[in-house]
């Protein structure tokens, strides 16, 4: 039994779960900032991203050391690779939260449209849920649960399309349209967070089965934009 290797893998996985929990806090923060149009909270979310980045860099460093010193193979190697990929997805989710927070700040001087804000909050809630599901599925090596993320992502995509349609209605109101355009970009960021959660689900499937397969193909991605 390689006690040292197992201890390092356990630490790595704990670090990944922690990074995931931290990014869920970012998502929650940005949802609240949207709901209340709170510019200060936006700044806090932006600053908080340093925490996410720090966790990612720590994981990257740990992965480098485990690979160099322990040369893991088979399921151990898959675990290290899956954590490295998944941690990068988590780090990107953090970046999306920063973009949403910045967009919210930028459009704060313009009047908000309740229907769109509600749509964005709905997307954010669904994303936070997806991230939690992706982390649990990873921890439990639960491929069925990981695959379920694809279904959840479709709901996020649907909400994204609704936001888009709503903003199209502002075409005769210049100020509302400017605000709306920024919200479309924010919605796109949530949509990406959902995709990243699906990506983590794909890493879980790789970890368990040894085969990497995307849960959706490119044509699905096209449909999600329609």
């Amino acid at each position, binding site marked *: *039994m390689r006690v040292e290797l197992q201890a390092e893998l356990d630490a790595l996985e704990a670090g990944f779960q922690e990074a995931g929990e931290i990014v869920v806090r970012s998502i929650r923060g940005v949802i609240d900032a949207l709901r209340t149009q709170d510019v200060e909270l936006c700044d806090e979310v932006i600053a908080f991203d340093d925490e996410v980045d720090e966790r990612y860099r720590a994981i990257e460093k740990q992965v480098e050391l485990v690979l160099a010193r322990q040369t893991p*193979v088979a*399921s151990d190697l898959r675990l290290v690779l899956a954590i490295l990929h998944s941690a990068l997805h988590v780090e990107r989710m953090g970046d999306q939260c920063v973009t949403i927070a910045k967009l919210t700040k930028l459009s704060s001087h313009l009047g908000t449209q309740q229907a769109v804000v509600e749509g964005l909050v709905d997307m954010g809630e669904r994303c936070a849920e997806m991230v939690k599901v992706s982390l649990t599925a990873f921890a439990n090596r639960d491929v069925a649960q990981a695959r379920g993320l694809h279904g959840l992502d479709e709901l996020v995509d649907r909400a994204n399309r609704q936001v888009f349609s709503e903003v199209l209605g502002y075409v005769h109101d210049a100020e509302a349209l400017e605000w709306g355009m920024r919200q479309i970009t924010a919605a796109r960021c949530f949509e990406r967070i959902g995709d990243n959660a699906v990506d983590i689900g794909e890493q879980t499937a790789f970890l368990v*089965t040894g085969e990497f397969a995307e849960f959706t193909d490119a044509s699905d991605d096209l449909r999600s934009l329609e």
Partner: protein
Amino acid sequence: MTQMEAPRIDSGRIAEVSHGLDRSEVESRERVFSVSDLSVAYSGNVALEGVQLHVHKNTVTAFIGPSGCGKSTFIRCFNRMNDLIPGAKVTGSVLYHGEDLYSRDVDPVEIRRRIGMVFQKPNPFPKSIYDNVAFGPRVLGMKGSLDERVESALRQAALWDEVKDRLKEGALGLSGGQQQRLCIARALAVEPDVILMDEPASALDPISTTRIEDLMHHLKREYTIIIVTHNMQQAARVADMTAFFSVLVDEDGSGRRGILVEYDATTKIFTTPSDKRTEDYVTGRFG
């Protein structure tokens, strides 16, 4: 301005060298050995039981497993080295290019010429570098220039440049890594078809080990190589196919015998082995 010449890269070869062959590529090659239901016993004690596998031409096949799993016993079946051990009994069949290696009319000496062997510890003769390599061809009365044969074997073993100016000096003056490559040259000089290597780098430093491993990649273009190794990373680096052997202990603890657990493409064995015992061994969770 001088134009840099673009390096010519044979991507197919790079793929072969760095990733090994996949299973279908290996299996499409001619079968050199077909082993079926092979068991070996020493004075009635079963050392290895029920082994079945094929070894294909121009590939490197590695045998890995814990001590006592029978991998060295197994590699010795391929050139009838077990014949030399009193009380050893081999049952089942080993076909070499379709011919039964253990048939009465097969000459073990001829077998050992065509199936050369390199051992764990370099074992050069206490003679000159030249005589070590020339020994086999001389004894066999092989035709053609002896000098050319010696040079060619030393070149193939990547030793020529280091020894060409001191061929008459004693082989025991060479470093361990050089001695091992000399033993490989000695095996190559009699123009074998297969080279068996039993832990060929276990007594060598990392640089010499790398040389031997590079040599294996190079030699498999002309020869079929079978290697026993304790070093799993070495198997991962050099072998196209890997066989994992384990020890089966009788329920009452009275007997232990080696068995073949899993035989597959090396990449499969080290990324997604099918058998839990293989996974436990390659990841270091064995026992």
